[in-house]
């Protein structure tokens, strides 16, 4: 069966520090991969999606970037964190056209 791993679960980082969140998927090949952010009291915002290795599309311009170095690995990064980057980050994968996305357990990022 397919599983998705996301880490770390929680992270506290100072303003201006770098960020790297990792997500890996098992049990499937060539998945569509997604990064979402959930700010406090708000819904989910799609940040990036990828349909293949090295293919990244950004939905919202911001202080973050994403990379997909391997088929089942998706990384969210920042060179210098801002206070506004705080939130709950969710990685997800989707198995095919018009089917549901499957989510990781999320990373709670607090920028201080």
């Amino acid at each position, binding site marked *: 069966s397919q599983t998705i791993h996301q880490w770390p679960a929680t992270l506290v980082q100072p303003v201006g520090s770098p960020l790297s969140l990792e997500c890996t998927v098992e049990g499937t090949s060539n998945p569509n991969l997604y990064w979402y952010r959930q700010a406090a009291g708000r*819904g*989910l915002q799609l940040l990036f999606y990828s349909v293949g290795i090295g293919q990244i599309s950004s939905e919202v311009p911001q202080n973050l970037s994403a990379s997909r170095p391997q088929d089942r690995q998706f990384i969210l990064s920042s060179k210098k964190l801002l206070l506004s980057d705080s939130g*709950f980050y*969710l990685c997800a994968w989707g198995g095919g056209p*018009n089917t*549901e*996305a499957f989510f990781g357990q999320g990373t709670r990022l607090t920028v201080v």
Partner: protein
Amino acid sequence: AQSVTQLDSQVPVFEEAPVELRCNYSSSVSVYLFWYVQYPNQGLQLLLKYLSGSTLVKGINGFEAEFNKSQTSFHLRKPSVHISDTAEYFCAVSRAGNMLTFGGGTRLMVKP
């Protein structure tokens, strides 16, 4: 373009009472609709989905939803809620493959 509106940000209800969480969508093309549940500090779990066929969809944990094309709605219902149903619920619509657009979420608060 498509959007999803969840009309209620919070819904308080007593245990064993029925509940309806409202969701309306707008889309210029055929849609696929989903309801997800999120427990505190966790990822999203799929409750149910509508892809085609019967407009009444049954999901996990006793939830069901009805797709109403004329009213562009996909309301979630449960005839009798439990304390354990306390969570955030998200309605979503898919576009361009399986990139999901989410509503703002509804916090269901079940009181004893």
